[in-house]
């Protein structure tokens, strides 16, 4: 008899806590957060400002170290890895989209998109891949423009292309449409979900946008560092 092996979660968070000590105060930012996310799933994290959404996102991506608990990303227990090793996991498996775009101002749109491939040593065909992705996000005629020469929506599309160019297993987006109006937001959202469908990229969104949150398969509602509702 053969048994069908259950696929491992791409992201597994268990009893995650994050505390800060400062100014004579002990702050609990995250209190025992746990969840699993399977490859290709989409998750939104919602909640009021200061509820710990961005902290949770940073911990999941290995940008920060938890006070306790574990984060397993793409099979790697992030708590056991050094900072350099965590960086390497990010480079291979993670894409990031930030609310404020965070493009490197001294690089052109094309160069910004090529960076993840260069970091992985995939320099062969990197330019073609980056150009293709920029074409997909509708910026084929802006590839040699610097971020300052692009509008907010265009910058976010470049950021999205950069986050996806190396076909990451998981894409973290921290309020990706927070700085954009609804007309500019729609194509960005459509692109993110399109990439999720086509590439099977797992999507983790932090958002205040209730409509965007409803578009994901899973949702974590947070308040004061705790998950108060998940579905």
């Amino acid at each position, binding site marked *: 008899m053969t048994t069908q092996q259950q696929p491992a979660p791409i992201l597994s968070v268990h009893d995650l806590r994050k505390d800060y000590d400062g100014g004579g105060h002990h702050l609990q930012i995250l209190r025992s957060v746990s969840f699993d996310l399977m490859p290709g799933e989409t998750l939104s994290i919602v909640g009021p400002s200061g509820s710990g959404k961005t902290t949770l996102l940073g911990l999941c991506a290995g940008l920060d170290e938890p006070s306790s608990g574990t984060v397993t990303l793409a099979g790697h227990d992030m708590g056991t890895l050094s900072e350099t090793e965590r960086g390497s996991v*990010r480079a291979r498996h*993670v894409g990031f989209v930030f609310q404020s775009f965070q493009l*490197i*101002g*001294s690089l052109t749109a094309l160069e910004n998109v090529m960076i993840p491939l260069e970091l992985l040593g995939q320099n062969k065909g990197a330019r073609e891949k980056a150009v293709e992705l920029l074409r997909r996000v509708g910026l084929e005629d802006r590839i040699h423009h610097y971020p300052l020469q692009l509008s907010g929506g265009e910058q976010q599309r470049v950021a999205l292309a950069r986050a996806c160019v190396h076909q990451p297993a998981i894409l973290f987006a921290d309020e990706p449409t927070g700085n954009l109006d609804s007309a500019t937001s729609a194509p960005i959202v459509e692109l993110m979900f399109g990439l999720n469908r086509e590439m099977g990229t797992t999507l983790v969104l932090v958002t205040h946008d209730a409509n965007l949150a409803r578009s994901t398969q899973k949702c974590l509602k947070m308040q004061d560092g705790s998950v108060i509702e998940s579905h």
Partner: protein
Amino acid sequence: MEFHSKGLPATFWTVSMAWRDSRGQRKILLLFMLCVAAGIGALVAVASLRDNLDGVIELQSRSLLGADLELATRQPFTPELLNFAQQLGGEQATEVRLRSMAFFPQNGESRFVQVRAVEGGFPFYGESETEPAGLLPMRDIQTRSGLPPAIVENSLLQQLALETGETIRLGTLEFEIAGSLLRVAGESELGGFFAPRIYIRAKDLAGTGLLTTGSIARHRMYFQFTAGLGERERSLLNAAREDLFIESGVEFTTVESRSRNLRRVMNNIFDFLNLIGFVALVLGGIGVGGAVQVYIKEKLNTMALLRCLGTSATTTFRIYLWQIVAIGFLGSTIGSAIGVSVQFLLPVFFG
């Protein structure tokens, strides 16, 4: 666990990233580089100048003195000293140097001058320049007026619009200007800056009435020996310095002691310049260091982003290290080139 390290060599990527990242900041980086270049240039210039002058002193030590030995005193030569000079032998020349006013009858002007009454073939070494050429060492020159000849500092002639053949009065004696003095062997161009030099023959000095009891004058005797200052001359000097030189108030200068004194003076000047250069470099370094710190602070966002994308801390550090190293290297190279070039440019500017 396998981590990304293949493909683009890390060093190539960091250099490439450092270059790309410097876009838009290159004017600031150029400014840093020029600060470094200026500091290094100053130090290299001082060091090169010191080396060059050391070499020149070594090569031209004889020309700097103009003789193998110089005896100098504030009093006229005593018979004992003249005896000693006879013992020393060699080619000899004398000079009486004093300061006085010179009167120029053509325009009624008078000037403070340095009178040098010379006899013999001094300077024995080095080239002096006069117009017409070859007037120094001083010799008997036939003048048109029959007056004794005087060679007058060129700057003084220009200042007073005088020409060769015109008259100059020193004390009670009139001289005819036989030529102009352009350069004296072993002396700088500034030698006659405060008191222009006028050369006359020693035998004409008495007629001027300038040298009487109580006159402030410096009497010098110069020697040239066929094989330089030898053992015999040195032993005679060593014997005389204990009694004769003290009694007669004689100071003696050899080629070696002149070089040594010059080096000492130069070393003091260069130590001072080096100290200034070093302090400037340190202060400049602190300034550049502060500016680099501000520059790096402005780059923190980019660094954080690169870390976020998976770049290691070491690689991120190297990107900016390359930029700073490149500034330092280029600044030092340009500074060194400037410092060395100054050696060639200074003579062009100062003739």
